[in-house]
């Protein structure tokens, strides 16, 4: 089987606002796919369409080979979902909700796995849900999803509200799910999380996918950060493709388009390199660039009318 999720040109409008504006998203079977974007970019709307809770206005979407709207009930037996804002029934205990959610998916829960996860996430399953903190509510939904045998796991900002220890536990779990061959769609605005877990990434902005691919592919399109100590100063900032160069005596720090990396390194070695660190951009930097570009675009639009 090819793709677990295949969406092209998805459009969703709520009254006058357009939440999704021709979104494309492809998640391959067996991969962990990070779905990144700032608040309000349309991540949750996309997921709710995938779950058949919302109806798309235009575009095509296939989930596990079926139509998420028409075949919702059958498809939901094969996936597990953790919402971004977990609300539970206040009068039920966490343990009851874990079991209930498993049964609503159509299968029971494996007791050993359930017990292991409850210990792993340090949850008290006999507490009523009204007494749980946000993090504990999140844990209930996570345990219910991870204890299932679903082919596809959909997490909407799963670690918002978890402490760092629990976040680490979550990452371990997702990594072992990947090894087990499950497909994961992970929506997040926490870039470190996506960077640590994802095989491929889709970045979404204002209802459109602006970039998609493996982290390696994305970095290829972008810049490398250089930090060097040289024998003598080099006027490297004159080279086209070099950005944000900071030259302090013999120290140099700059960002270089990968296309001109060879040229820049040639000039540096000509001047004599004492130390050199080169690193690919973090996802954070990729992300900031996207949104910095966006605000620059906006500025340009504003500036254009003036002569």
């Amino acid at each position, binding site marked *: 089987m090819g793709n677990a999720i295949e969406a092209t040109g998805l459009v969703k409008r709520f009254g006058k606002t357009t939440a999704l504006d021709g979104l494309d998203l492809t998640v391959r079977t067996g991969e962990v796919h990070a779905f990144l974007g700032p608040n309000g970019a349309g991540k949750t709307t996309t997921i*709710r369409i995938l*779950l*058949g*809770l*919302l*109806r798309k206005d235009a575009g095509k979407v296939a989930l596990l080979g079926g139509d998420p709207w028409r075949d*919702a*009930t*059958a498809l*939901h*037996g094969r*996936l597990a*979902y953790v*919402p971004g*804002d977990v*609300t*539970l*029934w*206040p*009068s*039920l*205990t966490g*343990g*009851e*909700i*874990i*079991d*209930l*959610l498993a*049964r*609503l*998916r*159509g299968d029971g829960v494996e007791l050993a796995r359930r017990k292991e996860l409850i210990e792993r996430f340090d949850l*008290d*399953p*006999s*507490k*009523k849900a*009204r*007494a749980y903190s946000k993090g504990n509510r999140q844990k209930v*939904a996570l345990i219910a999803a991870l204890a299932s045998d679903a082919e596809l796991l959909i997490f909407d900002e799963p670690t918002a509200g978890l402490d760092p220890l629990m976040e680490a536990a979550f990452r371990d779990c997702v990594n072992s799910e990947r090894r087990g061959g499950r497909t994961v769609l992970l929506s997040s605005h926490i870039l470190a999380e996506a960077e640590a877990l994802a095989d491929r990434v889709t970045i979404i902005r204002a209802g459109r996918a602006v970039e998609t691919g493996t982290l390696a592919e994305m970095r290829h399109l972008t810049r490398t950060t250089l930090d060097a100590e040289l024998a003598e100063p080099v006027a490297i900032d004159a080279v086209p493709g070099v950005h944000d160069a900071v030259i302090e005596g013999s120290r140099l720090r700059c960002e270089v388009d990968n296309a001109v990396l060879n040229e820049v390194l040639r000039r540096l070695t000509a001047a004599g390199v004492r130390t050199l660190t080169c690193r690919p951009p973090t996802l954070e930097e990729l992300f900031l660039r996207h949104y910095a570009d966006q605000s620059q675009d906006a500025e340009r639009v504003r500036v254009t009318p003036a002569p």
Partner: protein
Amino acid sequence: MTTTPVLPTAGAAVQPRGGPLTGAGALAKLALRRDRIMLPAWLYVVIIGVSSNAYAFVKLYQTTSDRAALVASGESNPALLFLYGRLNGDSVGSLTAWRYGVWGALFAALMSVFLVVRHTRGDEEAGRLELIGSARVGRQAPLVSAIAVAAGANVVLTAVLCLVLPLLGLPVAGSAALSLAIGTCGLAFTGVSVTAAQLTAGARSARGLAIGVLGVAFLARAVGDAAGANGPSWLTWVLPLGWTEMVRPFAGERWWVLALPLALFAAGSWLAFALAARRDHGAGLFPDRPGRPGAPAALRGPFALAVRLQWGSLAGWAAGFAVTWAVSGAAGKGIAQLVGTSGALKEEFTRLGGQSAIVNAYLSALMLLAGIVAAAYGVSAVLRLHAEETAGRADPVLAGSVGRVRWGLSHVLVAVGGTAVLLVVAGVATGLGYGLSVAGAGGETARMLGAAIAQLPAALVIVGVAALAAGALPDACVAVGWTAVGLAVLLNIFGQALQLSHWVLDVSPFTHAPRLPGGTADVAALAWLCVIGVALCALGLAALRRRDIG
């Protein structure tokens, strides 16, 4: 005070140095802003309800002879005494106060309960008060602002009625007494609900507790009124709705009685402040006990979940029904005796159809009331669908292998089943209550059970309206559902005295329900009501399939 309705404590509560009341003014403004539709709607319903009916009475019953039949039945028909209270005097004002005093007060009390719980325990449960409490807001400020808003609403209600009723041609003193009797009942239930909101951990149970007290108050006065001179007529004096009658508007006003609801308001508010100062944020009087670490085998699927979620509230309603209708049924015995004692009454009763007809009229009025109140339960249970959806709790169910129709149907079934259960309880309780007191419990129970179940098809139509709205018009479904209940109350409890045309009365499904015992059951009409009710539910579920969730 200026002529515009300004809330008295709102502005005054802001203190420069920051006491326990700091921020109450700002909170009251916020509450008014959030309630800018709901609050005027409540005031409109109560004010228009009372004054338009008063207007109709003034027009319809101008002369003593016009009023004679109504006055005679008001003085002697126990069913009417049970529903509306005692008739003091025979003027138009007396008739208005009799028909709309208790019910106006009932609605003012409901308004106060909903307002207070929404702004105290409701906000606390939703976590909004936590955010507010972290700002520069005094510990008691949310409570003060909630009381101020509810009290202000009742003051406005009283003031407007005070102005409107004399304009319709009713005497000024009586109008003032009636308005104050209604408004102070709202205040009394402000005190009751503000205390209830401190006792329970959830808004739903706080509302349930306060409305339970209201139910008991209605029952106490209804039984006290219908029991006659030899029965426990002192019951009318025990709780607020009875006090509304005891003010005797238009019939030698007893102004001092108004002090009773005001005292209850003060006591309730004081108790709430004392409780609030002692408890933790978010906690009720009783701490949550730990529950099961795993789900019982039966909790597997949307229907089991719906039953589990709604079980507690249905049990509460059923207990209320059992007590109310058993006591009301037992009061039927007093009616039978009453007929035997007084010669003048005997004549009047014979005119109305004799002893058995009188008792039957009383019992069938009880069944009509049971039908309408059970329909109200059904509407609240169906609206749980909407509550689950807006709280985001529909998502995890629908993201499971559960179709929308199955999910929607589970709550509709609980609503319809619960309505049926309540009617069975009402029938059995009335039958036992009446049967045990007159001997013949078995036969009476069977008869009353049938009479109660005959109300189910009509209630099903009302529940169906709410189900259709929850499926097709989620934003308006709360308003639509309760409007349907309100229309049934208006048309079937007040419609006849208003001499409304049959075309209008026919709108309510309860107009087509049989008047049992005593009347005849029209099987075709019952079948039609069932068909319409089921069709409305089916349409609602079909609409639910087609729209966005959440």
